[in-house]
């Protein structure tokens, strides 16, 4: 036992002397190693996006078992990352919760309740020595039928389920968070608040940027999976239409090229100067 922490990482049921539960932190690492998820709460809807690295040339990207954005109920969807099989257990649970709510109360589960209940579920797996915490995280987007408002939440492996204006998790979360902050989503004034159409473009842009910046993925193919809930989707959770996605990708690539050129010009100017 070299350091004060060693030996306390074998079970989620035991705290380390300095008050940490290593198993839960390791579960967080599993998420940090997996593909990026981004969510934006726009003024008129929510957008979810994931980048799916194609680990192998022979993978068919549209295969159902490689789906990473799932519909939970008509009005809610989750984008997942981490160990996908773990994530799918979460998705299944979310679908069950939504269906149970519908049966019991005859209405759609409010997104904040769904997030809260999933949080409780995930947290349960951090309490018992016999259980393994979820090596997965998910971003939940939902539409509240009663208040006519959308909500965006992220579930962490420790069971936290916070609400966000914009959120990112997975491998590229640091860069993505910086990019999201530049969009001023948290400033809810009319001028800077973003509509879903712009949000879609920006989600695509950030995901493509991350892919380009990542040395491991350089040159390897990547697939974008995006969904939204907005007026255009009749306030239902739906994949973003192919033409909208294609346009978003084109815009994103153009923007990134422009920014590259600007950078180069700046560099040249610096050298000349």
């Amino acid at each position, binding site marked *: 036992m070299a350091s004060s922490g060693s030996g306390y990482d074998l079970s989620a049921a035991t705290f380390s002397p300095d008050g940490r539960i290593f198993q839960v932190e390791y579960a967080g690492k599993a998420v940090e190693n997996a593909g990026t998820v981004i969510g934006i709460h726009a003024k008129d809807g929510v957008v979810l996006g994931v980048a799916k690295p194609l680990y192998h040339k022979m993978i068919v990207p549209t295969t159902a078992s490689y789906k990473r954005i799932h519909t939970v109920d008509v009005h809610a969807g989750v984008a997942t990352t981490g160990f996908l099989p773990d994530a799918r257990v979460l998705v299944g649970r979310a679908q069950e919760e939504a269906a149970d709510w519908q049966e*019991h*109360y*005859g*209405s759609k589960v409010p997104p*904040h309740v769904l997030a*809260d209940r999933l949080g409780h579920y995930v947290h349960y797996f951090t309490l018992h020595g016999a259980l393994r915490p979820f090596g997965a995280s998910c971003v939940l987007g939902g539409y509240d039928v*009663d208040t006519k408002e959308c909500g965006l939440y992220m579930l962490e492996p420790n069971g936290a389920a916070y609400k966000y204006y914009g959120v990112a998790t997975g491998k590229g979360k640091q860069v993505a968070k910086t990019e999201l902050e530049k969009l001023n989503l948290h400033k809810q004034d009319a001028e800077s608040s973003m509509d879903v159409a712009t949000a879609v473009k920006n989600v695509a842009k950030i995901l493509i940027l991350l892919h380009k910046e990542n040395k491991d993925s350089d040159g390897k193919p990547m697939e974008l999976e995006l969904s939204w809930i907005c007026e255009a989707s009749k306030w239902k959770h739906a994949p973003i239409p192919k033409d909208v996605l294609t346009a978003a990708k084109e815009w994103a690539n153009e923007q990134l090229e422009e920014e590259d050129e600007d950078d180069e010009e700046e560099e040249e100017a610096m050298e000349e100067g």
Partner: protein
Amino acid sequence: MMSASHSSMVNPMSSNPYGLKEGEVSTGTTILAMPFDGGVMLGADTRTSMGSYATSRSTDKITFLSDHIFCLRSGSAADTQAISDIVKHYLSHLTIETGREPLVKTAAHLMKNIVYSNKDSLSAGVIIAGWDPVEGGQVFNVVQGGSCLKQSFALGGSGSLFIYGLMDSEFKEGMTQDEARALVKKAISHAMARDGSSGGMVRTMTVTAEGNKRDVTPGNELPFGPVF
């Protein structure tokens, strides 16, 4: 009298293992609810009877479910009290979990679930009426058997049969609060005059966004007296 008839009936071997109906305290009743401009008006007589004996002449049949939702009960008093207690419990739980007021349709759905899934052992016809911020004043009728009907006004209980015609001709959408209260009182008085199982006083409850208001009209001050 009641215990005697009950003990002979509660026999799991008999074809009526729950000892229901015969001799049971029932709310042989007139109940009525209707939305008006800005809320919903509920009304009921106050008689509870066992056969032809009036067990109570001042019963309150307007039962609280949540801040702006009430129900009116008809059928077995025991059954409807028990299930409205359960719905009240569910709604308070729901209020805590969602952090907002429950919807009237949610209350009706909960009531329906119970009545429908226990239709073989319950004797219950319940009107759920209330106000919520999403849809305003609404009235639902959960009928014996568990059908859940959203209605422009709802009548229930044995006395209702005598006033369907009156309500069909006098009810209008978007009445004022005072018009609604007057109609409810008038209709229930008419039912009480013709239905032996309805009687006593007329209680009303006005539910609006601002709050709820009770009102009671004693049996000697009704807008319509017995026919002579």
